[in-house]
């Protein structure tokens, strides 16, 4: 089966603007940054699949396409920096396509929020992504 998280992470890190902002701090399969990572040290991005369709399972295309709904949280040291990461994410992923991403589309506009426990600022967004076997 396609590794959706790894595929999306690779796709995002190939975007120069986004990579310049977050370096390699793109955490797949996570709601919040991992222990030891503090958005106060620099912006980062977390994402995870929250649902979606299993994909097209025609005879010749078994597991060739997965259509997840993906939740993204763009963190920054301030609301503005978080929004900058979010904008870079949209530029990289919305209407994006490549060898492994057939199509991606943002579902609604990102919403600035704050983690209740840590007060980290982030922008929440969701994308529908069509991931295919490269």
């Amino acid at each position, binding site marked *: 089966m396609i590794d959706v998280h790894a595929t999306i992470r690779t796709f995002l890190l190939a975007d120069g603007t986004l990579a310049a902002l977050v370096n390699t701090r793109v955490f797949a399969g996570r*709601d919040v940054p991992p222990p030891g990572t503090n958005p106060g040290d620099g912006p980062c991005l977390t994402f995870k699949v*929250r649902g979606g369709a299993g994909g097209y399972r025609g005879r010749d295309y078994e597991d060739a396409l997965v259509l997840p*709904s993906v939740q993204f949280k763009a963190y920054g040291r301030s609301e503005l920096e978080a929004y900058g990461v979010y904008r870079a994410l949209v530029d990289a992923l919305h209407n994006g396509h490549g060898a492994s991403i057939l199509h991606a589309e943002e*579902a*609604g506009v990102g919403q600035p929020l704050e983690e*209740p426990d840590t007060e980290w600022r982030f922008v929440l967004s*969701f994308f529908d992504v069509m991931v295919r076997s490269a």
Partner: protein
Amino acid sequence: MPVDWYEREVLLKIEGATDEALTALAFHGEELAKVNIQANGQIDTGFMLNSTYGLGPTGSHRAEAEAEATAVAERQMAGPPSLEEDQAAIHAAAEYAIYQELANSFLYRAVEQLQEEAGGIIEDVARRKGL
């Protein structure tokens, strides 16, 4: 921090549904969301569970939800969403519900489950209406 969070994408479009069917869908979606909350282990006081309710053109479970939720915790529920005449909703009215949803989805998952079951629910309502 109170959050009003509406997600366009958590929308399930049902063509040709009656008002009764829309409301029945919302009530069933409420049940599914509550089952998911329990399955996800997202119960502390029970406020979020009890303050999740369905509403539609012909009815709302908000009053019951408010009575049950405020009986288990001293919190206020977020105000009801304003719906157009052909809309129904499942409202998770605890202000912290969004963070539970992001950590482990109970609402989006309920809508996906509802999508799979919607045909059956609409058929049941149509039968009761003699359609």
